[in-house]
Structure formats: structure tokens, C-alpha cells
């Protein structure tokens, strides 16, 4: 009888141990991204609320994907839904501007979606040219005064996109390397606000909620990408100024390399995921679906 009880006790102990092991493994498996690399910060700074999803590029764990337009009769949202299984998503939000959304227009400015040319019509009033590599890396160029440089077959190659000849060479490169390219407003570069102060009262920059992509360099020399959103209706100039101060003092960034404007108008769409892969639904700054079909999407994911 005693022997039988001991056997049952041992069996129960072993089972409990295995259960605890299984639970801990499941929890570890449930973690989709490292919270030390990706941080979600909600704070107020200078009478403005900032929702920040800050991603460290250290160890090259962060991947970028951009869905520029509808392809093969699939909407951007459908393409995103089909792509996202087995991905460790961090954030997905609307990207650049769109022309004539009611009549099936397309993205404004030069646009290539994974090597497929969508729009060759470069808009030189949008100074931010964003190049997303097939590997998930990202590069930003100020079209006003710089040229795009990349390495082709081990050789540094330059493309002057302002010139049609250079643009053709660049498009050929983007096609062959399956790169994604889009244009948007460049609000700041190298710690300098590029938005005109006279635009404060101009109807061209009305008061609105703002969302941007920021590329910064921290004290440790690591590059960070952040999606920052404010619900307060502000002008672009005021927002950029406050954001530069916020990044430098509150976030302790040495350098704000670029601030790129993202669309919050008619396609105010964002989804943010917690470190366990769950969709965060509380708070409009981390989750908002203004429309069922965003016309383009910028997506950040984590590679284990």
C-alpha cells in the first residue's frame, strides 16, 4: 500500500515537473519579439502626447516590409493578411499619400513594390526617398541634395534620381534586386526641421493628428527606427519641432537622421502588437482602423 502510494506520488511529481516545463517552453515560444529591442512608450512632452514604438537596429533583428499598392488583383490589406502568418509583427501602419483614391489612382511619387514598378512619375516636391531592400533593410535619401548610393557587385554605385537617365538606371537596379521604393515628405534631416515656419498658418499644413517614421542614432551608437504618433491636432512645423526636442532630451538620441511623414488623413490605419504577438486594441494611437482597406502599408517585424 505504502509502495503504491509512493509510486503515485512520484508519478504526480514527474507529471507536474513536465507540465511546468511545458508551460515555460510554451511561454517562451509565445514571445514574438524581444521587449528590450522593441519598446512601446506612451508619454506627454511639451503639451503633446507621443505614442512611440521604438525599435533598435542592434543585431539586425528588425525587418521592414512595404506594401505599396494592389498587386495581382489583391488589395494591400489582403496581401498583408496573406503575408503575416508566421511573422513576428511589431507594427503595421499606413504609408505614403495616394492620388484619387475614389477612382483607383495610385501612390504619389516614384514607387516600386518588390521590384514591380508601380509609378515612374517621381515627385520632386517629396524629398524623402525610402528604399526598402529585399533583405528587410531600409535606406532614406534626401532627393533635394543627395544621390542614392548602393553596392552593386561589390562596387559602390551612385544613382542621381533627379535625372531621367539616372532614374532609369535606378529603376533597373530596383527591379533586379527586388527592392521597394516610395516617396514621402521629409520633415527633418540631421537634427534640422525642414518644414517652413511660415507654413504654420498656411492651409497647406492644416492642424491634424500626425504620424511619422523617425530614424535616430542613440548614445550607444545604435540606430533606432521609431513610429511616433500624436492624437493632438497640430501643424507639421510645431509637431516636427517638438518631436526633435522629444527625441533628443526624453529619448536621449544623439542624432535625428530623418523624420518622414506618414499618412494620417483618410487612411489613418495602424495595428500594434505586444511582445506575445497579441494585437493591442486599447488606445487609438496604437490601434486605429479608419478604413477597412489601407491603400499602402509599412510593416515592421522581428526576426528571431
Amino acid at each position: 500500500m505504502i509502495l503504491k502510494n509512493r509510486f503515485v506520488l512520484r508519478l504526480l511529481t514527474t507529471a507536474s515537473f513536465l507540465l511546468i516545463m511545458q508551460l515555460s517552453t510554451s511561454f517562451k515560444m509565445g514571445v514574438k519579439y524581444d521587449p528590450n529591442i522593441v519598446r512601446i512608450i506612451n508619454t506627454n512632452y511639451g503639451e503633446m502626447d507621443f505614442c512611440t514604438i521604438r525599435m533598435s537596429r542592434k543585431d539586425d533583428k528588425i525587418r521592414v516590409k512595404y506594401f505599396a499598392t494592389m498587386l495581382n488583383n489583391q488589395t494591400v490589406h489582403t496581401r498583408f493578411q496573406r503575408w503575416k502568418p508566421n511573422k513576428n509583427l511589431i507594427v503595421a501602419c499606413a504609408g505614403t499619400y495616394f492620388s484619387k483614391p475614389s477612382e483607383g489612382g495610385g501612390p504619389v511619387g516614384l514607387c516600386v513594390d518588390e521590384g514591380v514598378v508601380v509609378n515612374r512619375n517621381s515627385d520632386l516636391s517629396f524629398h524623402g526617398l525610402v528604399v526598402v531592400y529585399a533583405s528587410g533593410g531600409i535606406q532614406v535619401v534626401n532627393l533635394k541634395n543627395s544621390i542614392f548610393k548602393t553596392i552593386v557587385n561589390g562596387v559602390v554605385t551612385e544613382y542621381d534620381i533627379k535625372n531621367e537617365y539616372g532614374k532609369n538606371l535606378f529603376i533597373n537596379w530596383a527591379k533586379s534586386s527586388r527592392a521597394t521604393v516610395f516617396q514621402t515628405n521629409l520633415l527633418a534631416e540631421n537634427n534640422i526641421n525642414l518644414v517652413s515656419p511660415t507654413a504654420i498658418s498656411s492651409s497647406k499644413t492644416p492642424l491634424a493628428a500626425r504620424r511619422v517614421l523617425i530614424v535616430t542614432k542613440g548614445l550607444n551608437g545604435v540606430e533606432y527606427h521609431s513610429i511616433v504618433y500624436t492624437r493632438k491636432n497640430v501643424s507639421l512645423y510645431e509637431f516636427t519641432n517638438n518631436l526633435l526636442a522629444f527625441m533628443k532630451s526624453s529619448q536621449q538620441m544623439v542624432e535625428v537622421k530623418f523624420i518622414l511623414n506618414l499618412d494620417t488623413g483618410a487612411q489613418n490605419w495602424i495595428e500594434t502588437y505586444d511582445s506575445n504577438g497579441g494585437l493591442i486594441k486599447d488606445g487609438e494611437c496604437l490601434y486605429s482602423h479608419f478604413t477597412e482597406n489601407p491603400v499602402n502599408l509599412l510593416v515592421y517585424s522581428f526576426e528571431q
Partner: protein
Amino acid sequence: MIKWQNSFKLTVIGFLVFLLGLTYWGTYSVEKGININFEQKQDLKFKNDALWFDDDSVNTIYVNNQIADSMFNLSPTWFINLLDSIEVNKTVTAVNEMYLFEALSKNLQNTKYIGDTAASIDFDSLKYISELSNLFWAYSQSESKYSVFLSSVSDLMTAKIAATLEYYGNKDFNVTNSKKFYYLEQYCLSRQYIVNIRVPKIKKLLYHISDNKWSHILEAFIYQTSFIFKFTVVILGVLFLYCFQFTVRVLYSQFNSKRNDPKK
């Protein structure tokens, strides 16, 4: 005191004016008819006397007035022959192509129709440029040797068509209703050039209404309109609602009085 008959009339008239306004501003009325009749244009001339470029690395190449005159038709074969003749004497083709392209683009900027911002849009000349652009594009697809050069010339022309359409379309949205405009816009699209024309606010409003983006409409009304606009809309809204409720109340009381009529 407003009589109920007047308030009823005001309500109906206000509602009709609102509907008519939406119909007038919101309708995309493309010209009627099937055929698009473009005039034949072949007078695309360089304003500059000559196409020239000068650089030590490729020696001095000068294309004189006579040659420039022969370029009225801007033929791809002419450029291919020129590039071939340059290549015989020089070594680096890409450099030659680039210089020739720069010289050409400078000249094209100065040509009639392409560089000018005329008072009104010249669809027929744009159609001619689109034909030239198409020709260069076709050659770029078959001529692998100078493919980048030829497609760049084609792009230069298409970009000009797109820019002209954008300029006039943004100046006056009604221009976009023209069939010729539509044809040229479709040509640009076929060459993967999306013509970016700002949609008038009333059309945007209709689009947002159809997409049920009410919170965006409210936000835009609060933050993106002037005080006078807000004031006018609020006054008109209040007046409309007043007349509407007044009409409903009078109709209701009349209905009740008829129902309670002892003669009945």
C-alpha cells in the same frame, strides 16, 4: 412669426439646393461621344539652334544647326547612329550616352510645348509627344545596347506629359473631364506614370461619405476649415433644423386636430 407653409417651403428648398449642389460638384461628367479627334502635329522644334556638348573625356562633339534641324522628328534611329558614331572614336559608351542625354534634356526643356507653360493646354501637341515617347520606348525594348538611353528619352517625354496634365488639372479640375485629357492620362498610366491631380474637396467629401468616414469628416471640418465656413455651415444647419422641426410640429398638430375633430 414664420408661417408653417413658409418653413416647409424653406426646408424643401434647402434640401433641394443641398442635393443639387452635391450633384453638380460631385458628378464626373466626361465629354460625350466615342471618337477622340486629335489634330496631326509634327512641328516640334528646338528653340535652341543646336544640340551640343563639350567634354574633354569624350573630345568635342558638336552637332550643328543643320543636324539640329534634321531632328524635327526626333527619331530613335538618328540617336542610335549618333551614339554608334561616337563609340567608334571613344571608349566609354555609358559616359557618351549620359552626356548626350544631358544635352538632349536641356534642349527638350527649351522646346515649344515641352518647356513652355502655355495659357491653355495643347492636347494635340501632347498627343504627338506621346507618339514619339512610345516610339523611343519601343526601340528601348528591342535595342539592348542603348536601352537605358532610349527609355530615358521616352521617360523624359512622358514625364513632361504627366507634368503638363498635373499642372492644368490642378489649376482647373474641369479640364480632367475632357476625353483628350483622359486619353493622355491613360497613356501615362500605360507607361506606369500616375498623374497626380488633387481631388476637389467636395469630391473628397463624397468619397468619405460613401466610405462612412464620419469621424474624419468631422475632424476635417473642425481643424481644416476657416471660421467663416464653419459659421456659415452652422447657421445654415440651425436654420434648416429649425424649419424642419417647425414643419414637423405643425404637421403633427394638424394631423392631431383632424383626428380629434368632433365632426369626424
